[in-house]
């Protein structure tokens, strides 16, 4: 396959995956929040919680459909564009993918159907259980996908078959307890929880600003603030450990995240840098001493390896080639992700303070800021994945298989270009429709009790 087709295949994977992962974190994050609202209704009998659950579950369902639809592409495109990759890793990588379907998708989709249409037909406790099972299913799905991805970052529990030269699994527990997975899984799920929480907070704040059902949306805002505080604190904490692990497992990714060209001990943390994208040096670099050493090695004087030193080492280890990722993306991707994480943590603290002081209603600026916060976790999620995936380049499986060797040999430039164009066009149209539907639903506010009773009669009638 010529180089252009490889580039297009990478663009297709990158764009469809980033797009898919706009919807997935919101689904993972909103499912437990809707389940909590349903639980509150179940336990207190308070009709307000039922209205809130109906409102947020409508938003959840619109979003969930987009996650399911775009997830299909993910499952198929390894075979379509990356057939060499599929043959090379299938013995290991295919297992979590198959398990995701068997364990998670069946559970999510079946119980979602029961949740949507089973109210009034199932005993109340059973109906409540269905939405919790949807939430658990979505987290299980994340576990399986991250098991697959963690193996690409840090392959474990395998051997290379001497005849086929493909990877073969030798220890499934090593794959499922991959140290990378043990941190990447909670990191990603917590980031998703934060996404759902900030979404709920922003939507609730919007309703408070409009003065619609203030008493109701104060409840969801309070739930969201506490939820955001817990998840943002934990996501930062886990992220810090993950950063340390990546420093040990993939030092080139860490160096690229910091645009650190020369090995340093002690190492300085870069706050802002401008460099020549392909060159081996920076033009501007604002740094804080010692911080990078502490982050990566947990000591003030720890040595952090630089890009140029690692490139030389990798050439000795793996043969001639360029082992340097595209530094501007890794450097800024990392900073955007971390920056938004800390911003969300600080914001949640302010929110909690306002609630404790009973000032959430009077502080309009906080409500406006909460609306502005809504898109940020989506940016952070995308930036984080761009950083972690592009920081692994030129490898698709670290140390084992390069991206350029993973592509389908027979895929012509036209078929990849047409499918890329087709997906982009379709996805843009669907994004507009989804955004518009969400906006309408938000403007409509929480459905009234009368409306909910009507709907449930309809459901029972059929």
């Amino acid at each position, binding site marked *: 396959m010529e180089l252009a087709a490889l580039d297009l295949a990478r663009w297709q994977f990158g764009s469809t995956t980033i797009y898919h992962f706009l919807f997935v974190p919101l689904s993972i994050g909103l499912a437990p929040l809707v389940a909590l609202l349903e639980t509150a209704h179940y336990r207190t009998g308070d009709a307000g919680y039922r209205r809130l659950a109906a409102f947020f579950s409508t938003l959840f369902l619109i979003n969930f459909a987009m996650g399911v639809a775009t997830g299909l592409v993910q499952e198929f495109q*390894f*075979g379509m564009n990356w057939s060499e990759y*599929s043959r090379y890793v299938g013995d290991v990588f295919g*297992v979590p993918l198959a398990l995701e379907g068997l364990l998670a998708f069946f559970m999510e*989709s079946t119980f979602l159907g*029961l949740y949507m249409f089973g109210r009034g037909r199932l005993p109340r406790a059973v109906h409540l259980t269905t939405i919790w099972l949807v939430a658990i299913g979505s987290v299980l799905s994340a576990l399986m996908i991250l098991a697959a991805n963690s193996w690409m970052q840090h392959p474990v529990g395998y051997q290379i078959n001497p005849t086929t030269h493909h990877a073969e699994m030798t220890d499934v527990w090593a794959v499922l307890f991959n140290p990378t997975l043990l941190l990447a899984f909670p990191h990603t799920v917590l980031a998703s929880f934060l996404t759902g929480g900030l979404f709920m907070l922003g939507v609730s704040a919007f309703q408070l600003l409009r003065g619609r059902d203030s008493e109701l949306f104060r409840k969801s805002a309070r739930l969201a603030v506490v939820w955001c505080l817990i998840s943002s604190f934990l996501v930062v904490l886990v992220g810090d450990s993950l950063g340390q692990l990546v420093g040990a497992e993939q030092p080139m990714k860490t160096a690229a995240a910091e645009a650190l060209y020369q090995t340093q001990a002690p190492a300085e943390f870069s706050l802002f840098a401008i460099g020549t994208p392909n060159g081996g040096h920076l033009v501007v670099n604002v740094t804080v001493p010692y911080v990078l050493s502490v982050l990566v090695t947990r000591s003030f004087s720890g040595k952090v390896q630089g890009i140029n030193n690692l490139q030389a080492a990798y050439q000795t280890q793996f043969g001639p080639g360029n082992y340097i990722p595209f530094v501007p993306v890794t450097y800024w991707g990392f900073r955007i992700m971390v920056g938004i994480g800390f911003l969300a943590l600080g914001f949640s603290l302010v929110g909690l303070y306002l609630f404790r002081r009973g000032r959430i209603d009077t502080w309009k600026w906080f409500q406006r800021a909460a609306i502005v916060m809504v898109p940020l976790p989506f940016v952070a999620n995308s930036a984080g994945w761009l950083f972690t995936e592009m920081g692994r380049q030129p490898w698709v499986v670290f140390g084992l298989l390069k991206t350029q060797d993973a592509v389908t040999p027979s895929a012509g430039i036209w078929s990849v270009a047409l499918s890329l164009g*087709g997906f982009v066009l379709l996805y843009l149209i669907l994004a507009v429709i989804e955004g518009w539907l969400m906006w309408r639903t938000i403007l409509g506010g929480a459905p009234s009790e009368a409306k909910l009773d009507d709907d449930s009669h309809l459901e029972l009638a059929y």
Partner: protein
Amino acid sequence: MSATVLSDLWFGVVAFFWVGYFFLEGFDFGVGMLLQVLSREQAGRGAMIGAIAPVWDGNEVWLVVAIGATFAAFPSWYALLLSGAYPAVFVILVSLILRVVAFEFRGQRDDPHWVAWWERAITFGSVVPPLLWGIVLTSLLFGLPVDKAGDFVGRPWDLLRPAPILGGIALTVLCLLHGAVYLCLRTSGPVADRARRAVTVLWAPALLLAAGFVAWVAFGTAGGHAHGLLSILVPALGLVALLLVLPLHRAAREGLALVATGGGIVLVLLTLFGALFPNVVVSSIQGAYDLTVTSATSSPYTLTVMSVAAVVFAPLVVLYQGWTYWVFRKRLSSGPVPEG
């Protein structure tokens, strides 16, 4: 268990998920196709969609697991299937994406144009997958230009040959019949009346197409008569099942009629997979390039892991999906469908 037995077994598991996919999603494809035909009123179409609304999503997962199981158990098969049928798979994906969002978006507004637009998307997303999957799966048996390295070296239109096209059309019409029978069972009122007429109209073409297809497999491929008695019994029973559909339908035994159309789909697909075995993709260039269960398989260790997972979780899935059908067993009249 020896390695080859495990690989053979997993060929059976992959076939099981494909067959399950068309047994279940087959009727909601059929309902989706009949949507434009059986009712001009929105209420009627609402009842039709209501009949599949709680279950179609779970049915679709059978496809996801069929593909996932292929990836894990036969990586080279997965790679060749999806890269070789690239344009068809792309179109299938587009149609499935539209179908998923259409089910969800349709009920979000009351505007009749909006509803009608998404209903057209549901129909599109219900015609394309059985047609193209039928073509793709039949191509695996009738041969694709596959070279020594196991790569597809042909052109996109190499899939569009007579036998695969017949396979695609037969599967589509079988799904139509399956959907019509399903509507007889699950709805009442005008929609059910028209669905009953549709069954009588669709029965003969479905039977003839299925008969033509299994005959072509039996006499037109080496694998079609390679398994002794089974090579005769499976397609014959499939045709008997389809033959029984009309009498059962006339006798108002709607549940049994649904089992018969479903059984027909299952046995026709098993005829295809049976004829394919022990190959997974036949090479039209030369027999030595055929991708087989043995050459495409994962390691025995991986297959063992997958077997344990399947033994534990597959029965659980069948159990709770079956329970869902029990929960939503009531007949639907042509009333409006709840949104959501």
